[in-house]
């Protein structure tokens, strides 16, 4: 009980919380300015004609160019206000809402670190991070507090620990540990670097990075919590994140983590930072002493002035509500990353339960998706021009993520409906490669995606990574009203010999499963037969030889 109390309600120095607030506001301001300067506000939120919404958040849409620029202005200004501690609660609320709103517009741009920022912003709303070293205190010295309940600092340590630990757990998979994937693909990108370049192409380097990365993620939060290991652990944080910054294109995330993990340091450490900052500020003010005479006398006394009430505490009801909410938050954070276990198959492949789970830099995927459209009213068949509807980035992400393929198919259905076409049938021919496996279909090419539904349920039309053949057998094919069309399996040079023959026999058997409804046969067969042929022979038969894992 005492230990629990010590980490939650017992008073502790406000200094770590204050430093955390200032650094967070600062790095968010920098990130926002960088984002705007890169022209991404236009590219990501104004240019696209369609946005991939999150399930349940379809109502989050950008409201025009002016609106979205306005929202980004709010993000920038509220991060400045958080940094300075000006009207802090309002600023934290404004930042959380505007930032999260932008992130919810389009899942194409989902990044774990954006999610992390939203969570931190949410937590900042509930903590008194403005009760020292802030414009709010300058304005109303009565707000000054020296002590806050321990949970207001520890909740951020918890959040950081969750990020690292689950990122580490996610790395405990065969690809990462036994094949050094995707490090082995990514590291050689910089083989032209002087001195270390040639090392980056060595297999051993990829394994070292993989194992060291996993060990780092799993242990770092605990090493930061434990005083004797804290300093070397923080050095490791810096080295690790600078490496990731140099090697991979991951934007501001390394710097955000380097700054925010300072929260693990002691109160005395943070007090020293604040004292230094105050001294620095004072010496600056002395240079302009005449202009700032009034300000100087007023603030110079702030740190030494004894507050009437130095401990921050909440009254009964609000303490209970906030406490309950933070408790729920903690439980949710511990469960969310585990939800992928509720789905069958490899989460890295199906991506069911992939997001919001700290699966960071885990997988190298590339894909290509072709959407066949069949209009039964006119009997016409065509293919969607993805590049006409999506930005290059959207198309790239959609081409490897089944949930986005489904959304896109639904969007296409709508587009064609607006063009006055009838009830179209849309199927997807996909080819996705993951961690250097041979490309293979990720979506059942026979399933009409306009009939498939979004939601939390397991999507039967996603083909598993491991066994494509058994998947086709058990896949939810429509009831066999039409005729089964047996397709001939192209013989491939590699399917010689005994193993080749059995595989061929198997795929011939499964080819009888390819079902073509009567009404589609005239128009649909000539093309789809060919496509299916290709899937069955060149992709599947060959790839199953290679990927015996």
């Amino acid at each position, binding site marked *: 009980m005492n230990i629990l109390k010590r980490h939650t309600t017992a008073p502790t120095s406000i200094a770590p919380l204050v430093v955390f607030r200032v650094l967070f506001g600062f790095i968010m301001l920098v990130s926002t300015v960088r984002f705007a300067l890169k022209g991404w506000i236009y590219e990501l939120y104004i240019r696209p004609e369609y946005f991939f919404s999150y399930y349940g958040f379809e109502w989050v849409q950008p409201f025009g160019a002016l609106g979205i620029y306005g929202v980004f202005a709010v993000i920038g200004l509220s991060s400045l206000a958080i940094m300075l501690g000006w009207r802090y609660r309002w600023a934290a609320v404004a930042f959380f809402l505007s930032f999260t709103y932008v992130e919810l517009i389009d899942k194409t*741009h989902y*990044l*774990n670190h954006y999610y992390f920022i939203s969570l931190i912003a949410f937590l900042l709303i509930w903590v008194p991070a403005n009760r020292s070293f802030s414009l709010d205190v300058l304005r109303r010295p009565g707000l000054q507090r020296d002590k806050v309940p321990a949970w207001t600092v520890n909740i951020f340590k918890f959040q950081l620990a969750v990020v690292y630990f689950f990122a580490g757990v996610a790395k405990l998979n065969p690809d990462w540990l036994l094949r050094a994937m995707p490090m082995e*693909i990514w590291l*050689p*990108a*910089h*083989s*032209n*670097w002087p*001195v*270390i*370049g*040639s*090392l980056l*192409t*060595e297999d*051993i380097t990829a394994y070292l990075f993989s194992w060291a990365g996993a060990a780092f993620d799993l242990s770092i939060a605990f090493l930061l919590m434990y005083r*004797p290991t804290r300093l*070397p*652990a923080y*050095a490791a944080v810096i*080295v690790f994140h600078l490496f990731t910054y140099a090697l991979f*294109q*991951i*934007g*501001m*995330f390394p710097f955000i983590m380097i700054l925010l993990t300072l929260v693990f340091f002691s109160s005395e450490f943070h007090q020293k930072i604040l004292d230094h900052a105050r001294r620095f500020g004072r010496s600056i003010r002395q240079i302009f002493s005449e202009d700032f005479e009034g300000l100087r006398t007023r603030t110079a006394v702030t740190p030494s002035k004894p507050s009437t009430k130095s401990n921050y505490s909440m009254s009964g009801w609000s303490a209970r509500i906030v406490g309950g909410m933070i408790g729920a938050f903690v439980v949710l954070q511990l469960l969310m990353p585990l939800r992928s276990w509720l789905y069958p198959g490899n989460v890295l492949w199906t991506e069911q339960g992939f997001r919001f789970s700290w699966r*960071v*830099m885990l997988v190298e*995927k*590339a*894909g*290509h998706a072709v959407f066949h*459209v069949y*209009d039964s009213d*006119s009997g*016409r*068949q*065509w*293919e969607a021009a993805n*590049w006409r509807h999506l*930005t*290059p*980035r959207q198309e*790239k992400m959609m081409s490897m993520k089944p949930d986005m393929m489904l959304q896109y198919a639904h969007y296409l259905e709508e587009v*064609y409906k607006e*063009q006055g076409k009838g009830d179209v049938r849309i199927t997807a021919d996909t*080819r996705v*490669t993951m961690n*250097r496996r*041979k*490309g293979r279909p990720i979506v059942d090419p026979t399933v009409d995606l306009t009939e498939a539904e979004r939601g939390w349920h397991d999507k039967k039309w996603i083909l598993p990574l491991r066994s494509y053949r058994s998947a086709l057998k058990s896949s939810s094919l429509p009831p066999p009203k039409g005729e089964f069309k047996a397709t001939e399996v192209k013989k491939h*040079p*590699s399917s010689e010999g005994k193993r080749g023959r059995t595989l061929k026999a198997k795929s011939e058997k499964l080819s009888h499963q390819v079902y073509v409804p009567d009404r589609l046969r005239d128009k649909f067969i000539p*093309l789809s037969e060919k*496509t299916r042929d*290709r899937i069955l022979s*060149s992709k599947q038969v*060959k790839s199953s030889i290679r990927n015996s894992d």
Partner: protein
Amino acid sequence: MNFTYRSTSLLILVLAVFSWTACDVGESGSDDGPDFDREAMLANFGENIIIPSYDALVDSLNEMATAADNFSADPSTATLQQLQSTLKSSRLAWQRVNLFNFGPASNNLLRTSLNTYPTDTARIEENIDSGDYTLGTVSNQDAVGFPALGYLLHGIGANNQEIVSAYTDDPDASERMQYLEDNVDFIQQKASTVAQEWSADQEDYLTMFLSQDNLGTDAGSSLSMLINAYIQHYERYIRDGKIGIPSGVRSAGVARPQATEAYYAGYSKELALANLQAVQRVFKGITFPDGMNNRGLSDNLEAHDETELVDEIESNMDDAISSVQALNDPLSQQVQNNNDKVQSAFQDLQAVVGPLKTDMTSVLGITITYQDQDGD
């Protein structure tokens, strides 16, 4: 106690970070697997394929300019035929460079300037009428380049006799001749600018292309730019532009004969074929013009032990080439009379995209970066 603990963990950390730096310094040049030299592959692309191809285009355009002068000095069916044939060889030469739309070509908007089709004939006639135009503006994009020349040399009369008379007897004959010559100049100037920027005696993009800084495979590296341009060209401008769009796969199954490349000249299929062969040559690393099999993308993949993937890509490319070969010019008529063959050629072209865009890029560690963004 505390001190020793701290220094021990620091030592472990330092060892962990530097152990890989120390393991075998001194061995270098082994880029992808034991036998592959990426720099040599890029040099082969730059020196033996890209630059000679641009030079050939410029030579061909010079010949076209001479032919245009002759036609202008003495308009006759003979000089017209001469000019038509130089136009065709220039368009064929263009098919060997259009897949390198990065660096100088993309900075100079070469593709949109030279080959935006279908051409806007109304706009062309308007320009000729008014005599007041600047070629190279965005609004004139549809009224310049090869497609405009195709219209001016093939599309304004039922036969060559009639076409010649448009430049001799029509009221706006001299203005039309002027527009023709301006267009020839415009194309020539655009292409030679790009060729010069690549060449070693001028802006020397080649040196940058082969510089140490750009030898990686990260976004912005030479190989990444080349492959991104290569795949985008294949997807958008060959599969879709040359075959898919005319056949109607992008317009709800309704064929669009006017959307063929070289609609008026009528050799769309020949151009598509030339372009596909250029794509194949880059994959195999075959030099131009002497046709030596040097280092190419296939060799890079083989150095990664991806022989099977190379086989798949090459056999799909062969299929695509032979089914385009099976089409008939003029393609604009084929899409109306026997579109099934065109659509099946489209499918064969499409079969190449998957392994190129997913497997090949993944094996080579290239990211498709048509658009810049952070990852995590």
